[in-house]
């Protein structure tokens, strides 16, 4: 056993990178669920974002355009879910699953000519002086801009939901869509916007995997991250900061367990491998012991005539 081989600064820096895709997707899904819609298609929207972000970044040579395209693609792809659930009044669970399955298939098709290509690299934030600080520099000031965007989004969503009128309306729609409708709010329109926001965030999260974390395109490369993000939203009791905590915890334990393995720690590997899931669930379950519960209208379809 040689724990000194683990560099805590690098460890924290890399856990933030590992957590960012989950965080981005979870924040988007949190807004969707707060509006009363359960979209199980996160995984599908992520992989669509991953492939389109990758393709655009490769074609244009600009990772920024890639990320922009991934958000747009995620939002456009979520329109399929909008069409099914908000227009055709289809079952949300089934529609979400359909979105995931078709996203995985479509991305494999779109990505065929991009296997084995290297994407343009996104530069890391490099602030003179700050980024060179010994411990704080690599942890706080040495990342790519999208990682900060993830944190900023968390703060933004939190402030929006808690303090703004728009957030109040969104929550009203999610708690009781009939009452919100009676008050004159456009329930369907608000939900469509929320779903598209969720799609854009998931797309960004997917592109983060294909452009920064891995960085390459391979079929099925999101490998279940979307599902983890979905579970995270529930365990975080629909609270943005808890989603951030859960995401960092999950990313953190994932990276720590690999580090422990490489350092030869004598804990059976199976326990290490399951630890990210177990620890994240335990912590978030303990945190969610307060009275917060799911949005009351979650998963229920709304039609003005009923």
């Amino acid at each position, binding site marked *: 056993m040689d724990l000194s*081989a*683990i*560099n805590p600064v*690098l*460890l924290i820096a*890399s856990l933030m990178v*590992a957590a960012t*895709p989950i965080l981005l997707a979870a924040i988007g899904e949190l807004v969707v669920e707060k509006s009363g819609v359960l979209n199980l298609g996160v995984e599908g929207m992520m992989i669509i974002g991953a492939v389109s972000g990758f393709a655009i970044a490769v074609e244009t040579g600009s990772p920024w355009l890639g990320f922009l395209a991934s958000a747009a693609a995620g939002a456009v792809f979520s329109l399929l879910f909008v069409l099914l659930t908000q227009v055709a009044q289809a079952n949300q669970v089934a529609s979400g699953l359909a979105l995931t399955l078709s996203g995985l298939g479509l991305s*494999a098709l779109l*990505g*065929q000519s991009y*296997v*084995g*290509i*290297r994407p343009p*690299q996104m530069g890391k934030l490099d602030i003179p002086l700050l980024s060179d600080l010994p411990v704080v520099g690599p942890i706080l000031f040495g990342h790519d801009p999208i990682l900060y965007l993830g944190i900023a989004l968390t703060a933004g969503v939190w402030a929006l939901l808690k303090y703004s009128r728009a957030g109040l309306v969104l929550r009203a729609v999610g708690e009781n869509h009939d009452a919100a409708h009676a008050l004159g709010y456009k329930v369907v329109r608000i939900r469509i916007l929320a779903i598209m926001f969720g799609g854009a965030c998931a797309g960004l999260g997917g592109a983060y*995997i294909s452009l920064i*974390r*891995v*960085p*390459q395109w*391979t*079929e*099925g*490369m*999101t*490998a279940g*991250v979307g599902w983890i993000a979905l579970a995270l939203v529930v365990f975080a009791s629909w609270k943005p900061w808890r989603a951030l905590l859960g995401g960092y915890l999950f990313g953190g334990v*994932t*990276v720590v367990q*690999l*580090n422990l*393995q*490489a*350092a*030869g720690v*004598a804990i*059976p*590997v*199976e326990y290490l*491998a399951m630890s990210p899931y177990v620890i994240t669930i335990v912590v978030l379950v303990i945190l969610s012991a307060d009275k917060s519960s799911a949005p009351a209208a979650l998963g229920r379809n709304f039609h003005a005539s009923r």
Partner: protein
Amino acid sequence: MKLTKLLTSAAMALGLATSAFAADKTKVGFVFVGPVGDGGWTYEHNQGRLAVEEAFGDKVETVYVENVAEGPDSERVMTQMALEGADLIFTTSFGYMDPTINVAKKFPNVRFEHATGYKTAPNVSTYSARFYEGRAVQGTIAGHMTESNIVGYIGSFPIPEVVRGINSAYIHAKKVNPDVQFKIVWAFTWFDPAKEADAAKVLIEQGADVILQHTDSTAPQAAAQAAGNVITFGQASDMSEYGPTPRVSSIIDDWAPYYVARTQAVMDGSWESAMTWDGIGAGMVGIGEISDAVPADVKEAALAMKASLADGSYHAFTGPVNKQDGSAWLADGETADDGTLAGMNFFVEGIEGDIPQ
């Protein structure tokens, strides 16, 4: 009356047509563990499938299902293939072993070929490649090239196949560099690019400057490239798009000749259950071009190793070799028998850490 007759004859004609059709075409099914675009393991199996199509043209029809999880779901996929009239089914991952045996019992007339396993039946063959011979070449290069003397190894599952590879690479790295140390991370997946990339990054952060992988995607190559000053080896497929660095060489699985031969055997009716285990000599294991990043003398040593493995003058497991606990395994000059190799569940002396049980 006339109508009935017409219908009957139509049905008969149709029946004849279908059976004639079925007799003409040999249907070959493939069950893949990852996507055909993974750039590694499944990609090469799919190349083998395409080779079968090319070799037999209209006489053969191939079907495949990708991303099939190891375990019960694979049994469903195989059953479906057999019901749809497949004559020969290749199941291309270790975890399909028991499902293959189970399904084979239900379809005695369908031939099954299971990759990398050790269970056979009258209608089940196994086939595998002696990847550990390729690992010996990799170990030789890794031992010479490492400057930190730390070699990182990304394992997938703790099965004999993977353990053999680790042992072989270690023995040959140690031979040319007595100070070499292996850091092993078990990813518990064959294919998860993000996790593989994380594993590679962790190993690099802990000082490894050579990364060997036994997982299927090219993600570790990309991670090594981003880190710089780290070398890797292509796994299962050449992965030459990452050369000349970080990828300095590779192990290439060439299944095409085997797949063509076995399909031919089914057509001739000469198919018999067998256990095939071929290595560099038979061409099932290829060593990808060693790039210019490797010094000439190291390249020469690696090629000499490859040649001696190919002509059989050297066995990758030649004594003296002790097991991890220090007990003797192979005496001086003794070579390992295939039975021990097939079920290898121990590390050799010098490797740190335990195999997850």
